[in-house]
């Protein structure tokens, strides 16, 4: 391997080991001392899970949810960006034209007919929510994902929407993506009445 030495990089040399260090006994004694110190310090660090549930930070990347818009429809516009970005190929969407006859849907062109995430295949990297142009998909702080079968953990659209309902009522909205509201770029655009209407709203989605 060739490394190019740059002026901005400071190169250090490995410290030479003398006869004292080479005996390793001082290091072993030091390690034992630390262990004994902790054993008698009186401080417990064992987590009492599941009796005591841990505080999960709101930027934790747990189970996905699909957000709803103000009218309770699924916010996703089925643009496939998350599916494209997903490095684990765990998202599968089937898009369909929005039901134009339904007044509830008349300002939307496209919506996800099915939206499936294989929670077992997912690596919880958060690329999907980063890719989402309408902040429809988010990773919540729900971490205890269990099931009896693999099939149970392949979440469909309804299940993902129910995660939204649960987490939003429990006040456990994730913090990365403005808690279901649109991002700062769109807010800026709206206040300056400049630029396009945020996608997902307006007659063209």
């Amino acid at each position: 391997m060739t490394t190019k030495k740059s002026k901005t990089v400071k190169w250090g040399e490995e410290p030479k080991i003398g006869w004292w260090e080479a005996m390793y006994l001082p290091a072993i004694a030091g390690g034992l001392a630390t262990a004994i110190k902790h054993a008698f310090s009186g401080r417990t660090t064992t987590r009492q899970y599941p009796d005591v549930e841990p505080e999960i930070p709101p930027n934790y990347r747990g189970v996905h949810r699909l957000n709803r818009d103000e009218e309770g429809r699924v916010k996703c516009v089925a643009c496939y960006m998350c599916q494209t970005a997903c490095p684990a190929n765990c998202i599968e969407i089937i898009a369909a034209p929005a039901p134009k006859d339904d007044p509830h849907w008349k300002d939307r062109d496209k919506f996800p007919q099915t939206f499936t995430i294989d929670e077992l295949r997912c690596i919880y990297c958060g690329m999907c929510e980063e890719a989402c142009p309408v902040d429809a998909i988010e990773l919540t702080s729900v971490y205890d994902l269990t099931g009896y079968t693999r099939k149970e953990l392949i979440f469909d659209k309804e299940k993902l929407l129910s995660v939204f309902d649960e987490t939003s009522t429990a006040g456990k909205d994730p913090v990365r993506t403005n808690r279901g509201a649109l991002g700062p770029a769109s807010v800026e655009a709206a206040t300056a009445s400049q630029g396009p209407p945020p996608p997902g709203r307006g007659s063209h989605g």
Partner: protein
Amino acid sequence: MAKVIVNDIEVDADAKDNCILAARKAGVEIPHYCWHEALSVVASCRMCLVEVGETKPDGTVVMGPKLVPGCQTPIKDGTVIRTNSDKVKTAQQMTLELLLLNHPLDCSICDQAGECYLQDYTYKYGNAASRLDEPKLQRMDKYHIGEQIALFTDRCVMCTRCVRFTREISGTAELQVTNRGSHEEIDVFPDTPCDNKLAGNVVDLCPVGALCSKDFLYKKRVWWLKSANSVCTGCSTGCSIHVDQNEDKVYRLRPRDNPLAQGHFMCDEGRFGFKYIHDERRLRKPKLTDALAVDAGTASKSAKPNGTADLNFAEPWLDVLTVTRNKIKEAIKTDARGFVAVLSPFMSVEEAYLLASYLKSLDKKVRLVLGRVPVVGSDDKYPKGSKGEAPAPDKIKFTIRSEKCPNRLGVEMILRHFEGDLVTVEQAVARADATAWYFVGGYNVGWVTDPIDRGVGKPSLLIVQDIFASPLSERADIVLASSTFAERDGTYVNHTGLAQAACGAVRCPGDARADGRILMELAERKGLYNAMTLRKEIGKAIPGLAAIAVGDLGEHGVKVTPVREPILF
């Protein structure tokens, strides 16, 4: 030829070229929306504005004072085109800003995203910010434009390619521009939707996502699609196409530019006629009658009461092909003259050659005949006149041919080589002296007519290699489940004698196999089926097809026979 200098690159351009074509030859892209090679020039989008100058006799270069549209400006010897000056770049940025003024930027749900010229040019030449301080104009979508076409009105950049197409190529003139200025819209007259047989092309022509195909709408994002170069098998025009597939499902066919075959377009019959590939009724596995299955030693596995024996589960073809080979040899030994193989015009040249050479190697007396050539109506020529009449012969720009098969000429040439004279299946059936039949189908629609069905009767051996069940396959001794054009490599010779290579895009459904593979194994040839190697072999063996001996036929294909009629698109 004319010497043109594009951004200091000197190229030889055709004297008939415009600036865009000349620059293309120099490897320089001049962005454009409204200009299309096959359509008239309107120079309305202003995207192709460039600086143009000329070389004076004393060698000095004088540039024009204003920017000119590259699409409308012809070149001559010594023309100087500049596309990288600040003046041109500013013009491009301003043009794009104007085009994007009322564009909804709904790329996330737009079907064109990924192959959209507005996206691409904005990325390459545009300015990221918009200075529009007003709400965008929003206009209603029009789903009534055509049976296959939807118009997303506010995505339109008013290039009028679609309007010119219906006026100049299809001649049906359904589309038009209504209103003026910012309120311009594409529309149709009331109750006259754009449903002509070439209508699907306006979707390809649309540089943005305004005109979308209802058939493909929201089915797949285009960046998932993998494209294979192929040939449309809908008629003998043999349009060059792209087969766009993802995960073994064909989503759409798109025309591929081929000046030798059809030009830039294709008809809707071909474009939407590929659905049979994914038909549920396709034959999915080979079949032997019970008696033959016993021969194959697989009777022990057959427990099905419905008459079909279960073959070797892992390798159903192994038994079938062995039995087929034995039965063919047996039948030829008893009566070689009575063994008739029917080669369908849906076969590729390679497949026809494989079957013909195999059977002829067994016995020279085996008869080879041409399968049914489906003909529907008469040739449909475009552009249509105002009353729907066909154009004058020298004005024809596109023809949908009545012969609804891709490779009659190719198969005929193979048959003439092996058989001498050409006999059709109808004639062979009428003679009623055959004792064993080998039918190859592969037709996109049912092809077994009553005379064929009755004429074949109940021969001692009936082998059917087809994609759909038919009266013949129902009572056949051996059914070989084969493939459609999208599933196999091969060469098709179109009506002018143009041999084009088609590449397989998807795999066959179930246990069905590509015809080439079936025939390779049936003929016990060494190696795997490879169209290019076979083309070399065929080119050497058959003088009429010598041109395909190059193997790689390129994107446009090669002419194999002298053209007997003038090429009319």
